[in-house]
């Protein structure tokens, strides 16, 4: 059942890649949309079949592969993987919808996107460390091509930077995995056998550190983030949606699944450091987003800050905060996707992303009124206004982490305030203001430009008003994951009243 999510897009990628050159772009795009649509429907079906009360892994699949290497084809999913797989399927579909109908070299473009989608799904579902690593590395080359062929002016530089960083990240993760298996002497690389490890705490911390840096590059966390603004800005709009919405989540997923999941003891020792790191990341990302004059770069920097919330939620080690962190992944994926899509439309219609050039786009006659309205919604969702998906995720993180790390949580709250600062700058300069009617002869916004944003906006509002649909999937898994940190859990229960009542 799960294999379909991986192999359908990959097979589709192969078919589309080898279509004859005579097939028109539009048909290739429709073909890709169909394949990813089927994958999306399949994901939704899995969502319906998913047993919410079951905390462990479901839909297990096992196929022996290279047993001598300890590498087997093992798939399964729990709540954490489930929501991210849904996000992946959805955002792939949105990415395809958002892509231009006049894309150059369409066969390569669409097959690469499908390949990425399959690879990411595989990484989320893999239950074997080496298998995860294979899928994790699989999306590297397609992304490199997607950035370097269809990107902006400095795409070569951006693509190489992305490649080097991601390769570093891969190397560190592999090192971490191999180190873990080697030191524990486990029989194979399966997640289950790695989970119950009882290494000395020093070694655990070392391995956790290696993995954190590895996944921290991918997320990204400050100071490993500098590939992100360049890469996001230089990529075309659909690719940015994939990069920000899905790929970044792979890093966050890795941190939670393999950092927290495999090294609970070391994680709980390090958690104050991690929470501080998260708070610094949030404030730094927000501060760095205030200066740029390029709206895409601003949105890109916003992503850095928002990744910090995920780390904060994971560091707090309370079920509530972890549910919040996972919800934040989904919410952030949706919000970033809508923002990048709209920025892409603005760039395409107006021909600029510069704050100093854009003005008064909310003008209903000559501007891009509907696009601007949706941009306001997206930006406000990102700034954490209640009633939209971003708020509830952040709130759960804050509420869950406040009793454990009050100072860091309050710093993160300040971070949401700063998020509002740069988004208001962005909105004031692009949507508000006076449209220069002498130059404002923009192409018409057609329904296809709005459609992906409307879907995302609908989801953002729905999940904001009915957050149960955002959190219910992950609750059991999060609680189970926190329960594997026995010492920490007891300490927290004992510590909570003393922190809040006596201090």
């Amino acid at each position, binding site marked *: 059942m799960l294999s379909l999510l991986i192999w359908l897009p990959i097979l589709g990628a192969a078919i589309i890649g080898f279509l004859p050159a005579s097939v028109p772009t539009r048909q290739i795009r429709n073909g890709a949309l169909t394949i990813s649509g089927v994958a999306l429907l399949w994901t939704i079906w899995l969502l319906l079949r998913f047993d919410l009360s079951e905390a462990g892994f479901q839909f297990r699949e096992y196929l022996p592969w290279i047993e*001598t*290497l300890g590498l087997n084809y093992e798939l399964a999913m729990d709540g954490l993987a489930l929501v991210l797989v849904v996000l992946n399927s959805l955002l792939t579909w949105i990415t395809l919808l958002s892509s231009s109908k006049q894309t150059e070299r369409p066969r390569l473009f669409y097959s690469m996107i499908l390949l990425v989608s399959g690879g990411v799904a595989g990484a989320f579902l893999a239950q074997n460390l080496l298998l995860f690593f294979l899928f994790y590395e699989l999306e590297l080359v397609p992304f*490199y091509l997607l950035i*370097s062929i269809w990107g902006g002016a400095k*795409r*070569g*530089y951006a693509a*190489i930077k992305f*490649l*080097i*960083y991601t*390769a570093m990240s891969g*190397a560190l993760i*592999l*090192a971490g995995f*191999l*180190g873990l298996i*080697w030191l524990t002497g486990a029989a194979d690389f399966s997640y289950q056998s790695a989970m119950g490890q009882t290494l000395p705490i020093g070694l655990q911390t070392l391995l956790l550190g290696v993995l954190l840096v590895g996944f921290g590059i991918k997320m990204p966390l400050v*100071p*490993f*983030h*500098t590939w992100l603004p360049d890469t996001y800005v230089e990529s075309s709009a659909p690719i940015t949606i994939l990069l920000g919405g899905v790929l970044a989540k792979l890093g966050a997923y890795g941190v939670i699944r393999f950092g927290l999941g495999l090294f609970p003891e070391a994680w709980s020792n390090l958690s104050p450091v991690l929470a501080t790191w998260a708070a610094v990341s949030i404030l*730094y990302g927000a*501060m*760095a987003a*205030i*200066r740029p004059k390029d709206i895409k770069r601003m949105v890109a920097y916003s992503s850095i800050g928002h990744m910090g919330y995920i780390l904060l939620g994971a560091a707090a080690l309370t079920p*509530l905060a972890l*549910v919040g962190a996972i919800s934040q992944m989904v919410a952030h994926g949706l919000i970033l996707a809508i923002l990048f899509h709209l920025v892409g439309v603005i760039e395409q219609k107006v021909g600029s992303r510069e704050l100093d050039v854009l003005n008064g786009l*909310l003008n*209903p*006659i000559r501007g891009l009124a*509907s696009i601007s309205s949706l941009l306001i919604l997206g930006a406000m969702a990102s700034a954490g*206004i*209640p*009633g939209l998906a971003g*708020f509830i995720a952040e709130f*759960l993180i*804050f*509420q869950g982490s*406040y009793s454990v790390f009050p100072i860091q949580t*309050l710093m993160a*709250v300040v971070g949401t*305030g*700063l998020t*509002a*600062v740069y988004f208001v700058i962005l909105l*004031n300069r692009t949507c*508000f*203001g*006076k449209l220069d009617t002498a130059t404002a002869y923009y192409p018409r916004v057609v329904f296809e430009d709005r459609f992906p944003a409307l879907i995302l906006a609908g989801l953002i509002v729905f999940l904001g008003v009915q*957050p*149960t649909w955002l*959190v*219910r999937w992950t609750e059991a898994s999060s*609680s189970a994951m926190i329960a594997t940190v026995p010492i920490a859990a007891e300490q927290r229960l004992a510590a909570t009243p003393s922190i*809040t*009542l*006596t*201090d």
Partner: protein
Amino acid sequence: MSQWLIQSAWLIPCYPLIGMLLSIIWFPAITRRTGPRPAGYVNAITTFIAFLHGLLALFALLNQPPLYLSVSWLQVADLNLVLPLEISALTIGATVLITGLNLLAQIYGVGYLEMDWGWARFYSMLAFFEAGMCALVLFNSLFFSYLILEILTLGTYLLIGIWFNQSLVVTGARDAFLTKRVGDLFLLMGVLAIYPLAHTWDYDGLARWAETAEVNPALITLVGLALLAGPMGKCAQFPLHLWLDEAMEGPLPSTILRNSVVVATGAWVLVKLQPVLALSPVVLATTIAIGAVTAIGGTLIAIAQIDVKRSLSYLVSAYMGIVFIAVGSQQTEAGLLLVLTHALAMAALVASCGSIVLNNITQDLTQLGGLWSRRPITGLSFVIGALGLIALPPLGGFWAILKLADGLWATRPALVGLLLVINALTAFSITRTFGLIFAGDVKPMTVRSPENLWAITLPMTILAGLVLHVPMILQSVDLLPDWATLNKDVALLLTWSSIFGVSLSAVLYIGNVVKKPIQLPWKPLQDLFAYDFYTPTLYRSSVVGSVDIVSRITDWIDRYIVDGLVNLVGITSLFGGEALKYGNSGQTQSYVLTIAIGLILTALWMSWSFLSHLTLTAQLISYITGS
């Protein structure tokens, strides 16, 4: 029937919400054919339904106990968020006030925004506010209050920004959003911090908890101050007051609503939070201090304004300051009463000023004058609004301030003195505004000035009528003191302070004794008031300035240190810096290859000892080495 009306009172915020969603249809970007006007009519209808429902439910509720409903909103881990609704005469009465004022503002808008193309946006935002405020009063939980206050912050941003192509509007909207957001975020901190202590966010639960709570005084002081910051932002209290002044750039019909009920959302939450605030004497003292500073400062600034809307808006801050004093001195009932009387009186004042501004095409007080004979209806409405605001019997403001002063008389006489000063200053300010508009010589801008069409005049006169009826409403719900218990000393003092303020101002601004414009003897002092204590400059050099500097520093660090260092270490050592930046030709492939090979080698090296354990590799090795 009446039972059904009460049971379904939760629908009251839903009607305007439906109206808001329907207005989207008439956005110029969606429907061009009909123009945007139907949006206004649809919203007026939904508002009327909400008003009617509220009114009928209120009558049904008058002799019934309150009804408490609850809906589960979110249950996750150990957090169970239940949405509690309180349907009582007080809350439904508040929705009647909100929907009623909103209905009048919407009708007013029909006349005021006659030529505007932003109807759909404007009316949907008015409905948004209406829905939000009705929900705020019905929801009996701090968490949901926070939620709504924060959403309304966004609403403020959009509502002020209706005329977004004017630069002052854009900055006004920005400042309103950010100032209120600062308050909201402190409130959020308070919301987060109170839960581990009280384990509830319900106001009733918080009040019960506060009765017996034993908490660390330092902690509860911090929490209380954080909780105080939210209402401070909403009520435009010092130092978060600037947004209300800038919000005057927005359209006037929304000002009717904003100056009367939107600012009162903060007061409502403050009143509800009073038991928690009372846990710390420091917080109560701070509440009083903030209120006192705002009230005195606000009235002084109002006197120095030449913009009629701004002059009124500072009085709003001042009155909310009095509410802060009331809550700080634990006179919550007087605070709520003041909110009610202030809302109606201020709405009448703003509506009549708008009626002047609209067809004299200026809101500059120095260009107005001599309108009494030309605009008698507007003039009367203004006078009634003014009398309803200040403490002059028999209208509403008097009874509210009397109740507060009476409560303070025995315990804190100093605050009564303060109230007398504030009241005299308010009376002075409002009479000055009246004098500058209606008395004196006719100016070029006021030569031709007829009364407006019914859509403006009708809501204005209805508001004036409501102000006149406030004492009767109060009488019918037993809120007026009878003659025997009336504190006659305080009543006389208040009356005299009003008379003093009014007559001094009348001598200066209505009588032709002093040459205008009237200047204070010392110019810097006048400037200090006229320029709002230089708060904008203060902001710019403190908060805004420091964020700006830190963001510059961060940007620099990001560009030259973090990125530069990484480039230096990571890339230069591998490939030699510059080549890479231009490497989008065939060279990149060789980089990819290098990386891939390097990766594999690293992997092999890292895993060597592991691999050598495995059977396959062991066999391979033995095969190769031949052993």
